[in-house]
């Protein structure tokens, strides 16, 4: 066991854990956050995605020690109903999620990509979102929402 300090959604926190314990378990159990989600534990789906210093990472495979000293943002820290991230506002407008369990992967990955490339083309977005899973099949809605967010961001 060791103590790791980090910032999560703007708050300074510390976590006591084995260095190899995935960040996901620290966020969910040590810090009591209900997002992100466990989907595979193998970095194959995206349900656990958070931003680490602004970059999307799969918290289910990232050791908590690798997050030490860094700043983490979860979907809850990305925006709020009062101050939504444009993607979140677009997701609500387009009524995107069905079961919604996959949402961290799509929103956090797209948010990071749009920050770098706000005018990403459809082909670039399809590439940027590869590796993410949505079992309910909301892919067409997801693309509609991203397009809507791009319009509000430009």
């Amino acid at each position: 066991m060791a103590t790791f300090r980090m910032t999560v959604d703007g708050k300074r926190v510390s976590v006591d854990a084995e260095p190899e314990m995935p960040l996901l378990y620290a966020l969910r159990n040590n810090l009591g956050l209900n997002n992100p989600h466990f989907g595979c534990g193998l970095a194959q789906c995206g349900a656990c995605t958070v931003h680490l210093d602004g970059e999307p990472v799969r918290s289910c495979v990232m050791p908590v020690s690798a997050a030490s000293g860094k700043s983490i943002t979860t979907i809850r820290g990305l925006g709020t109903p009062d101050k939504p991230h444009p993607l979140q506002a677009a997701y609500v407008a387009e009524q995107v999620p069905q079961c919604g369990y996959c949402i961290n992967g799509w929103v956090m990955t797209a948010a990071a990509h749009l920050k770098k490339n706000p005018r990403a083309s459809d082909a670039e977005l399809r590439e940027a979102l590869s590796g993410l899973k949505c079992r309910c099949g909301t892919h067409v809605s997801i693309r509609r929402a991203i397009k809507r967010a791009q319009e509000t961001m430009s």
Partner: protein
Amino acid sequence: MSVSRREFLKSIGALVVGGFVPLEEALGQGVAGKPPLVPGELDSWIAVLPDGRVQAFFGKMDMGQSLDVAIAQIVAEELDVGLDKVEVLMGDSATSCNQGGASGSLGISHGARPLRNAAAEARRLLLEQASKRLAISQSELSVADGVISGQGRTVSYSELIGGRHFHHKVEWNKQTGNLMDIKVEAKPKPPSAYKVVGKSMQRRDVAWKVYGTGDYVTDVRVAGMLHARVIRPPRAACKVRGVDESSIKSIPGVRVVRERDFVAVVARREWDAVRAAQRLKIDWHALDDAFPDMSALHDHIRAAKVVKHVEEVKRGDVAAAFKAPGMRLVEAEYEWPFQSHASMGPACAIAEVKAGACTVWTGSQKPHFVRDGVAALLEMPPGNVHSIWITGPGSYGRNDAGDAALDAAYLSKVVGKPVRVQGMRADGTAWDPKGPACVLRARAALEASGKVLAYEFVAKGFSRQHIATNEASPADSLVGQAMGVAAKPTWIFGVPAESYGFDNKLLAWEAIAPLVDNCSPLRTGHLRDPVGPELHFASESFIDELATAAGEDPVAFRLRYLTNERHAAVVNAVAEKAGWQRRTSPRPSQAGPVFTGRGIAFAERNGTAVAAVAEVQVDRRSGRVWARRFVVAHDCGLIINPQGLRYTIEGNVVQGLSRTLFEEVRFDRNSVHSVDWASYPILEMQDAPESIETVLIDRPEVAPSGAGEPTMRVVPAAVANAIFDATGVRIRKAPLDPARVKAALSRA
């Protein structure tokens, strides 16, 4: 509810019938004053709160397709209150009757019936009360947003009954599950009077999902809760010889729970449970070669003894027609693999067994049956089990959620503390009940003119209910089976649903025995639109093969034979919207590496008619198929919420496309090898359609049928027919993945 409580309520019931017992008082005394939760009480379905809000108690639940909104629309409509005033409480065994949970796309067609009747009856009673109170005849009263007015005077629902119970009997039809309904004196409104039903309304679960502010079942935390992982065997039907607990002694505080062939680890910290489950050494006595070679799966099905054979549709003299002179025989055989629910996350459940009672939080779409299954497993009366549904990580039938609920309940009983069980990825992919693999044989006899004289379709496969549709019996759970309760399969498959008016016609199915009786990762159960994609992949591909044999356009061919007007209407509507040009398939020769084609498929499902056109690109170099555009025409009778319906159809198209192009459970003679997303790939964004267009045919005069699943069944054949149209190559084995398509093209 315990018997004593029921008796108590019965004893006070006589005192309060006809009067209203204050809800606040009732809450102060537990549930005293509220009639028992039985379908024959109006209060079991609907309540008016002191502030005028309305609660509807629904024994089914929504999983993101806006069913709850539709129920709220129906209740608001009948009761004449604003939609925002109606809250729908779903899937809690303590607040709703057993309407069967999510099942068969029946949420509106069946699930809404008692709610609609209850809301209408509540309105009738309230008008009666208002008439007395205001001394105005009912014919002079009107209702708007929960306020009754007449002759310039008003009284609101909340003044009349807010916070109190109706204590009004309704006539229950004595059915439990999907068919549960009540008969009331009130007459529900005619569709011509609808103001809320039929309008697009926003979902209620979107914002919390988007902002991460709500809870999934995975997020339920109970004080003192321990974390568990269940260790499924490495092969089918393994027996446990021994468990070496010293193998996890480096992880302090982990408890091993073993009962016969069920093994789990329980720990205070989740990470400890995960690590312990990975490290625990178990001496398994494995059954060798339980499965056939994967490459011989469909040969196994062809050769397997038929356990049950049913001829569902039989018209004319098929045998004689096939022997008629001068007939041209067309025949084909299709194959469909095992498929996994592969829900977005492995299932999770939390259970707390305390003082002879159990509370279980489950993502299972059948929470009332979870109650019954837990009660049977723990040997306690069902009334002592409180089952609470909370949305889970995806639910498309009998997935792994049913197992997790019973696992958690059992473990909580053993360790005496609340227990949270969550699977690892393999538990959701390798160990969920599978959609059944099958072989589908079709043949037809054509006259010289191209007319189909005889048609025969026989489906043969593993039963769709080796594992029952719900977990009400431990026999249908892995924990039950591991502890020695034998599975009790129901032998059932299915036949295509259509109205092709061939003079001589036979549609039949044959079910075969499971590969392994108990504790099998290839046990079969209901997967969204059970056997729909399987059957109609074959039947609607074959209809196209007949159209080609008859030298006719696939749309024209279908219209020639469809006998149901609504069926023909969806085919016409989809063709028109898609801009379908009438010609025979395949398309005249194309140049370049990427060929394009279009395909249509049609099917019916419990009253809903659906047709889809797929436009595909086939890359002849890689074998990749991109279904670029889909058009769907959909007729499910009266439409409650067009926007919700449209999104539900879209989800069906994409999930159906994933099953068509990519999904196949892989295994060897001993084990299932599809354990994660790498070994069980599903569709990703690169392969998602560019557009899905929908034509919604609204029929207010026709009672609503379902929409949760029908579109799924037309996707596979629409794609297969489009591939044939593009390339002239007919692929009769799913999934139509790049390797298979490339191989088929290279053979052509």
